[in-house]
């Protein structure tokens, strides 16, 4: 899951996967803005066939949190 997410985000931001660690801060370290976040979240929804609640989107600060959340959804 985490590996796939890293790959997807790296692809979106045109970065190397090695630049993105599970705990890397999306906003402060990667310069991800609100448009990027929604782009990424929509891609995640498509990839993993889930619906992500908007309220939680603003709480994501790194990929580990996104992965944990998605794993929780898939476990349901």
């Amino acid at each position, binding site marked *: 899951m985490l590996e796939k997410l890293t790959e997807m985000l790296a692809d979106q931001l045109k970065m190397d996967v090695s630049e993105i660690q599970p705990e890397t801060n999306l*906003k402060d370290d990667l310069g991800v*803005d*609100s*448009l990027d976040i*929604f*782009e990424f*979240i*929509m*891609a995640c929804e498509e990839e993993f066939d889930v619906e992500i609640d*908007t*309220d939680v989107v603003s709480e994501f600060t790194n990929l580990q949190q996104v992965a944990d959340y998605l794993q929780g959804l898939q476990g349901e």
Partner: protein
Amino acid sequence: MQTQITKLLNITYPVLQGGMANIAEHNLVAAVSNAGGLGIIAAGGMNAEQVRAEIKKTKELTDKPFGVNIMLLNPEAPQIAKVIVEEGVTVVTTGAGTPEPYMKEWLEAGVKVIPVVASVALAKRMQRCGAAAVVAEGCESGGHIGELTTMALVPQVVDALDIPVIAAGGIGDGRGMAAAFMLGAQAVQIGTRFLVSKECIVHQNYKELVLKAKDIDSVVTSRTTGHPVRVLRNAMTREYLKLEKEGKSLEEMEKLTLGSLRKAVFDGDKAGGSFMAGQIAGLISKEQTVAEIIQEIVEETKVVMKERVATFTE
């Protein structure tokens, strides 16, 4: 001039007035609706009871449909969302985020929700959660902006959605409206041109700055904070951009902008005010009534479309 949007909103012309905070109040809103467009009260910077009062005053001036624009970052947004339902407002446009927390309540009350979007992904999400249409707003607009231009954003959003799209950003005359239709939009949203209408309550200095503005007179501040804003350049923006370049803290920069929109709108403070306006300000050269503006734009659109289409299809 019937489009999906005139039918959806029950208006005569496919022209919406932008929800300019501190500017779009009942006088302007009622004038736009009475002239056949859709006036929109800007709830940005207001509390819920102020919004209720504005809605009531607008109803006294017009029996035509009008809308309310909510800035979702406004801490009063949940209360304002309720006021909209209680007062029977039929159209809501939303900015600065996603209206998903309020969608259920609004849709049940029959409110048509039209989010302002700056990207295809957000537009798709809005369609999925029940939006009746979206405003695709390019960065030519005044105030808070996204990254894409209207020319690039509108056709991409049109292609991605099944619901109608309203184009905004850089549209100030019939040529702009005709271009928006060609890109696939079903209506336009106009802010800057209405700023200088006779019914608009902004300080005369604000109107003069817009009327005198040239094509290159707007600048974008706050890019570093992630919330870029387009304003007419003045002493305040020069100082702000200097601090921004020096990497000063947000707190330091906010000292300059705190209350600066109100200084522009109400005091006409040319040096310290934040005179939000779009890039199209350079094209706008006269103060007219709202009805004159709408009629002129609509008539020009018809002429432009007829003549241009004839030129290229002969």
